């Protein structure tokens, strides 16, 4: 193996020798430079491989033939080899990316770049503190040089600010080093660590200066204005190197020196890292310049990694994995994003909309954003997971909160940005050129994130059976690469895949776990049915199938999950897929954002709760049971987390827009199916809480009330909608309110009602959304008052909607009544009378919107422009009527489904079960026989119909306008179609229920956040002196806090 010292000799030899080349050899020198970095990469790869596969021991390299501390020594171990491998490879890619710029600037620039990379290597390798200082100086001077690769007013002034800042910082470092020498008599880091510098105050101050300046090099918030200016103004290729490569070297330097301190030192580093993480991400919210935004994000991420370094004492053996996983995510994603920003060349994140022209780049962009936030399957997901787990285990619960808060802030701006790129309506999309030298590094980094993610999974606890998640993901990846195929073919593949998935998953579940079987059936059968509707679409329908399948894979994963990481992994997969699905719709950009933010916040709450659980009972999902410590906090977090998906009141504002604006076949997916994921989560939660807890648990009581009020508000709001899909969306909120209420009851009957509601909601909401979606697809409008009389044109759709709303409103004989009946019994039995009354009130309000829906669209006056419209597409009719058959079976033989569920519930809720005599169900309070009701009503209806038919079979069919209209003919259909604001009176009476206080609350929350970000970022006034002052104040503040 080549000694790492030759990293320096080779690169310097080459750097010096480039001077021999003639005047016009810029290109040649750049190629040589790349080759050299290639050799460096090779050397580091060789070492990394030896460490990883060859059980290589850590090696010390002595210079000048003397042992330390008499001479400078280098050390290469596992971490060193990994870090320099990363630095060198990103250096190689960055060199390729910057190739043209470097060539244009000349061989001097080439040399500067090479030395820059070399210095980073040495910063990592050296074990001598003064040598570290020298190479840090080289690094900053090289950076100052690379800054002016972009030569404009801003870059030069920011370069000067950079020099001021690093000048002060490195001077402080030097003072620290020499006094360190005075107090320890050595310059070797190992000796520094050995000699307890904290013994004397002077030694402590010297160490403080060293650590503080290393920390300052990492741009801590708020002493980092200079760095932000640099990130914004320089060539993105250079920013990438600063954010990824430089930061990794300095981080490692900090990591090396940190043990010289005492535990308190670690805490301080941790604290300041977290301040940076949260503060910087908060200020990032207000940013619009992509590079500056990335700067904020960069600073924040590095802050997080610094904090993790500070957590080393209590992270235990997982420390290395956590640090590397989170670091590598930042490293790859940030480099990729900066490089992308160099390709796009836009000054405002809104202009990233033109990324859409190159879907390939858009996918890479999404990859990086999701990597940064910590979505699966990227390494940051696993890193963050372990971080939260270990932190909780060590009892640092509040740190979990802080970290998740910072991550959430980061999510806000990154997803805003991603939303702009995917969906912002932007007429002015400037062209941008594609240069393969710039694309290749981005693509490689993108691929690496996936590989790193896959690889990370091996280091995380509880991922032994992850192949069951990776196989579907692999299938999705293949589907993505087939994206060029027509929709028809891809849909067949997708349906085949889903069906196979269901085929291998469901039968087994039916035997073992009915709960999971029911939800699995809803997810997968529902998925297949809604996918069938996708055949309607012509063309390629790019990006739809991978996203849809990702969502379903996530849903399937939730069902299969046996431990918390599997659950959370799937949960996040589902969120990711559904986000992409939702944002595909028209005008869905803001809704996609709010969906994502609520999901993210919810996921973080779940993550925190899992962490706290893990710290007590281990990683299995069973661990949620019997928590000894703070169970209410954990259950509360989980409940709120899951309720972001079920859109309970207060957390619902994302839903109407997201569901309404989604595509016609996506709405049923996200409404009928996706919401059940939250329900499933709640069920898992409630099961863990246990039936015996039901009596005294105030969380359940609160949830019951919340469910009831959600139902009321959701349904009332639904009655006032003019938009058909919004109406259905609000209706979903209301229905999910029932479900939440039912499960909160925590009795046998309550749960039966909850299951019945869940199944019913799946059935009728899928029918309704599919039917309305299909109608919307034909009519190109969502507004109900623009429709009317369509029963004549779309009888199939009408019948579907009719059956849908009968089920929805719980009118006998269809299955909706089963839920209502169980509900009455459960409520009276439980004693939740008032909540129950509210729910029933909500139930009657459901009639209002049900009628409105069917009346405004299908009845009344047919509009002139719809006279030739065709019935809904056959591809919608197939799934709709399949579902209707389901409704009919459930209505006629409710015992077929309710009996097994009852048996399943017996172990959990042994008392007050339903007793069955044939088809008649009996409770303590009442009885009901669904089959007989169906028969009686059927016969009676037929008889009456026959009677009427005999009497008036000769009724003449009249024209549309032939109505009792004072002998006049109505002028236009619009004037006689009573549809707009149909419930004005009701609105006047109870409209106060739906005053959008909650939307206002969230709007003002986000405004305040925005305002705070805007206010606090004014500390960055652009003046280099102010930044210098920040550094001084920051150091002083740290000093005062420590001493």
């Amino acid at each position, binding site marked *: 193996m080549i000694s790492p010292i030759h990293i320096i000799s080779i690169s310097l030899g080459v750097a*010096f020798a480039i001077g021999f080349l003639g005047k016009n050899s810029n290109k040649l020198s750049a190629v040589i430079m790349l080759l050299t970095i290639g050799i460096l990469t090779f050397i580091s790869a060789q070492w990394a491989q030896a460490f990883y596969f060859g059980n290589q021991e850590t090696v010390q390299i002595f210079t000048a*033939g003397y042992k330390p501390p008499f001479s400078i020594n280098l050390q290469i171990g596992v971490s060193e080899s990994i870090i320099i491998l990363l630095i060198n490879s990103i250096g190689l890619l960055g060199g390729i990316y910057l190739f043209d710029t470097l060539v244009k600037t000349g061989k001097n620039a080439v040399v500067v770049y090479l030395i820059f990379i070399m210095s980073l290597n040495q910063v990592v390798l050296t074990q001598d503190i003064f*040598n570290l200082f020298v190479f840090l100086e*080289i690094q900053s001077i090289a950076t100052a040089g690379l800054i002016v690769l972009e030569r404009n007013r801003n870059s030069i002034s920011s370069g000067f600010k950079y020099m001021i800042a690093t000048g002060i910082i490195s001077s402080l470092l030097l003072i620290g080093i020499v006094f360190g020498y005075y107090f320890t008599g050595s310059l070797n880091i190992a000796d520094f660590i050995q000699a307890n510098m904290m013994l004397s105050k*002077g030694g402590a101050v010297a160490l403080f200066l060293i650590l503080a300046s290393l920390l300052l090099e990492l741009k801590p918030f708020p002493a980092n204005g200079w760095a932000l200016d640099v990130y914004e103004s320089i060539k993105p290729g250079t920013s990438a190197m600063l954010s990824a490569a430089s930061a990794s070297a300095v981080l490692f330097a900090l990591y090396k020196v940190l043990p010289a301190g005492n535990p308190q030192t670690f805490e301080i580093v941790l604290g300041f890292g977290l301040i940076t993480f949260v503060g910087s991400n908060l200020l990032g919210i207000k940013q619009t310049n992509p590079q500056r935004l990335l700067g904020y994000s960069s600073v924040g991420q590095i802050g997080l990694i610094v904090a993790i370094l500070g957590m080393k004492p209590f992270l235990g053996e997982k420390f290395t994995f956590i640090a590397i996983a989170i670091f590598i995510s930042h490293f790859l994603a940030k480099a990729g994003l900066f490089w992308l920003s160099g390709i796009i060349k836009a000054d405002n994140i809104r202009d990233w909309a033109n990324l859409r022209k190159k879907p390939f780049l858009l996918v890479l962009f999404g990859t990086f954003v999701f990597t940064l936030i910590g979505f699966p399957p990227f390494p940051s997901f696993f890193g963050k997971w372990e971080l939260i787990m270990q932190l909780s285990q060590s009892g640092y619960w509040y740190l979990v909160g802080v970290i998740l808060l910072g991550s959430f802030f980061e999510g806000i701006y990154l997803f805003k940005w991603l939303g702009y790129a995917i969906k912002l309506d932007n007429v002015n999309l400037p062209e941008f050129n594609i240069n393969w030298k710039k694309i290749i590094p981005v693509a490689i980094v993108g691929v690496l994130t996936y590989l790193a993610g896959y690889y990370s999974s091996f280091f995380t606890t509880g991922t032994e059976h992850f192949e069951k998640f990776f196989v579907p993901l692999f299938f999705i990846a293949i589907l993505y690469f087939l994206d060029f195929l027509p929709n028809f073919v891809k849909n067949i593949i997708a349906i085949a895949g889903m069906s196979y998935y269901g085929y291998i998953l469901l039968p087994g579940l039916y035997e073992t776990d009915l709960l999971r079987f029911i939800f699995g059936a809803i997810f997968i059968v529902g998925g297949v049915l809604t996918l069938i509707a996708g055949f309607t679409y012509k063309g390629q329908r790019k990006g739809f199938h991978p996203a849809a399948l990702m969502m379903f894979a996530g849903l399937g994963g939730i069902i299969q999950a046996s431990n918390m990481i599997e659950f959370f992994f799937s949960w996040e997969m589902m969120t990711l897929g559904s986000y992409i699905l939702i944002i595909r719709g028209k005008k869905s950009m803001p809704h996609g954002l709010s969906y994502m933010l609520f999901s993210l916040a919810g996921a973080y709450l779940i993550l925190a709760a899992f962490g706290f659980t893990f710290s007590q009972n281990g990683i299995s999902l069973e661990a949620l049971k019997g928590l000894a410590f703070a169970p209410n906090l954990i259950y509360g977090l989980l409940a709120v987390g899951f309720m972001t998906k079920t859109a309970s009141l207060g957390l619902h504002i994302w839903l109407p827009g997201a569901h309404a604006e989604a595509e016609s076949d996506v709405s049923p997916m996200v409404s009928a199916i996706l919401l059940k994921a939250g329900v499933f989560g709640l069920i898992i939660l409630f099961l863990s809480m246990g039936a015996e807890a039901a009596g005294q648990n105030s969380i359940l009581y609160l949830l019951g009330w919340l469910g009831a009020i959600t139902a009321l508000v959701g349904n009332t709001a639904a009655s006032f909608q003019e938009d058909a899909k919004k109406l259905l969306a609000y209706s979903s909120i209301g229905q999910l309110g029932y479900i939440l209420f039912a499960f909160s009851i925590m009795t046998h009957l309550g749960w039966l009602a909850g299951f019945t509601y869940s199944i019913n909601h799946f059935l009728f909401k899928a029918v309704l959304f599919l039917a309305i979606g299909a109608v919307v697809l034909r009519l190109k409008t969502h507004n109900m008052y623009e429709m009317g009389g369509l029963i004549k044109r779309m009888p199939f759709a009408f019948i579907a909607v009719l059956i849908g709303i009968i089920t929805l409103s719980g009118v006998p004989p269809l299955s909706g009544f089963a839920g209502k009946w169980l509900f009455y019994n459960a409520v009276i039995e439980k004693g939740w009378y008032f909540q129950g009354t509210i729910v029933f009130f909500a139930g009657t309000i459901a009639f209002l919107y049900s009628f409105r829906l069917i009346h405004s669209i299908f009845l009344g006056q047919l509009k002139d422009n719809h006279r030739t419209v065709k019935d809904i597409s056959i591809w919608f009719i197939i799934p709709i009527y399949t579902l209707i058959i389901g409704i009919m079976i459930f209505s006629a033989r409710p015992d077929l489904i309710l009996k097994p569920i009852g048996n399943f519930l017996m172990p959990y809720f042994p008392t007050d079960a339903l007793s069955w005599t044939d088809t008649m169900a009996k409770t303590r309070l009442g009885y009901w026989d669904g089959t007989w009701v169906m028969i009686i009503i059927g016969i009676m209806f037929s008889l009456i119909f026959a009677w009427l038919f005999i009497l008036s079979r000769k009724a003449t069919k009249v024209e549309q306008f032939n109505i009792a209209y004072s002998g006049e003919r109505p002028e236009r259909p619009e004037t006689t179609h009573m549809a707009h604001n149909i419930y004005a009176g009701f609105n006047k009476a109870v409209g106060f229920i739906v005053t959008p206080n909650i939307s206002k609350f969230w709007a003002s929350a986000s405004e305040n956040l925005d305002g705070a970000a805007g206010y606090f970022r004014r500390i960055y006034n652009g003046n280099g002196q102010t930044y210098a002052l920040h550094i001084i104040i920051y150091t002083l503040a740290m000093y005062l806090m420590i001493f």
Partner: protein
Amino acid sequence: MLKKGLILAILIGFSLMFIPLIQNFHGNDKLSDLAKYYTENAEHGAGAANIVTAIVITYRGLDTLGEVVILFLTASVIGFFLKISKSEKDETLRFSKLRKTSELLETATKALVPTIFMFGVYIFINGHLTPGGGFQGGAVIATGFVLMLLANPQFKVNHKVIEYIESLSGFSFAILGALGAIIGLGFLDNKILPLGTFGELLSAGIIPVIYSFIGLKVGAELSGIVETLSENQSEIEI
């Protein structure tokens, strides 16, 4: 004014930070163990009479390499930072606004410059014996160069020569260092040449050789920096 007062207050607070350093500083009564080792092994270790030089070139040779790199880097950065494109390079503008140099200075320069160069070379060749070394010698050489520029602003340096000297010396430095690692005990091991007799010119292994390269390189680099800075630039849009 208020702002200045505030800054003053912060600065005073900042300075108080150093008080513990001064308080715990009691001067040295004897050498540190590290320095003692260097001194005791002056003859058989690096073999240089000037212990500072021994440390600079051998024990902490990597630092010195870094130092050289820093100068090299600065020269390179300034080189492309202040570079003017060919079209903008207007020779007639060059120093046109400088006052004419006096006859006296010109004559004196002609006499002085070779001496100064010689002196510089002396300093770095004797670096391992007497105070001074490559950096000081290089700086002296650069001073001579400055003098030449002052005396004759039209003086045109041959870039190629400077560049070659710089590259050659730097490259040799790196090669020597690597040789130490390959055939000796470590990078920049000075024992790849015999130590010779302690206190003589040709002693201390490769220290004099390296110091000479450093001297040449530093001289060339500093001259390069000065030269770049002295080139007049017309309005360059930046």
